[in-house]
């Protein structure tokens, strides 16, 4: 592999563009394909399949065996609420390889002093999500407890088919939330997709422990999703 080739691959990964390398193992010759580029006809189906499933492996093309390696952008986590839990979650998500953004219109909460390098958007979710559209490769965790802030992004996340939608709050809080979402016209089957109370049940108590439970819940959703629906994962 040549340095210039690796630089192109790394630049694509850095800019969140999916990439596929196809390597002839007998000659070492490798070709790079970026998502959205036109692909050489002979390898098109192997490249498309790798992009769709996120699976790398040895593929036979004609009478040749090649190694197809797919590099998908890391899944995103959008956190609604720049709260204590989010401070812990931001650090843990980075370790686990997620691309995390925090949205909170309360500028007293969303401060660089509290969040360091984490990407923060101190706007209402209605505005912030215009620039960062939700999609099937995104998990949304709403943790403000405030319906004025949480409800819109929860509805938007269900509509966008986010692979994970979670909301902080007790069962009682959640049943009130369900009633509000129904009034907003959200389908009941969609509402049932909300993870609430949020996080795997590990009896988490402190903000950091709750962040562990949320991250574990998100990872479970990511790793058990159906790849045939076109949702992509991380590696």
């Amino acid at each position, binding site marked *: *592999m*040549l*340095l210039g080739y*690796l*630089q192109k*691959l*790394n630049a694509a*990964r*850095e800019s969140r563009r999916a990439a596929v390398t196809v*390597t002839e*193992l007998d000659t*070492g010759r490798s070709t790079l394909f970026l998502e959205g580029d036109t692909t050489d006809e002979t390898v098109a189906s192997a490249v498309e399949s790798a992009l769709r499933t996120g*699976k*790398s*492996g*040895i593929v036979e093309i004609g009478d040749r065996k090649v*190694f197809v*390696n*797919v*590099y998908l952008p890391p899944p995103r986590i959008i956190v609604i609420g720049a709260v204590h839990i989010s401070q812990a979650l931001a650090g843990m*998500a*980075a*370790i686990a*390889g*997620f*691309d*995390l953004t925090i949205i909170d219109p309360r500028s007293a909460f969303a401060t660089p002093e509290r969040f360091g*390098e*984490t*990407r923060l958007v101190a706007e209402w979710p209605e505005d912030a999500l215009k620039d960062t559209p939700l999609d099937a490769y995104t998990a949304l965790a709403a943790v403000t407890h405030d319906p004025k802030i949480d409800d819109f992004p929860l509805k938007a996340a269900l509509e966008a088919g986010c692979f994970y939608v979670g909301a902080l709050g007790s069962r009682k809080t959640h049943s009130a939330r369900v009633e509000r979402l129904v009034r907003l016209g959200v389908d009941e089957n969609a509402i049932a997709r909300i993870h609430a109370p949020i996080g795997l049940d590990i009896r988490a108590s402190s903000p950091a422990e709750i962040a562990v439970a949320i991250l574990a819940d998100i990872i479970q959703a990511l790793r058990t999703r159906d790849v045939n629906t076109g949702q992509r994962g991380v*590696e």
Partner: protein
Amino acid sequence: MLNQPPFPDPLTTAEQWRAQGRGVAIATVIETWGSAPRPVGSHLVIDAAGNFEGSVSGGCVEGAVIGEAAEVIASGSARILDFGVADETAWRVGLSCGGRIRVYVERLG
């Protein structure tokens, strides 16, 4: 890059090392059978001094890959390595989990 993991990315490390003029090899898991600790596509990168970043197993066979990498860096010829419990005679190391993996090691030119 925002939200960069607090440990280095192997391919980014390989690029930086090569740009500094170091000899570098990239090892990639290309096939797995049974229980394998790292999925196909995982990278371990090694420089000529034996520094490394990333993994191709749970630490079981990295030592052997690093040894082979030195030869790949010196010769420039890529090679394919097989590891598994069945290969104990060929390799001093194996995968205690009982799986098998095949690793492609190439020089970064």
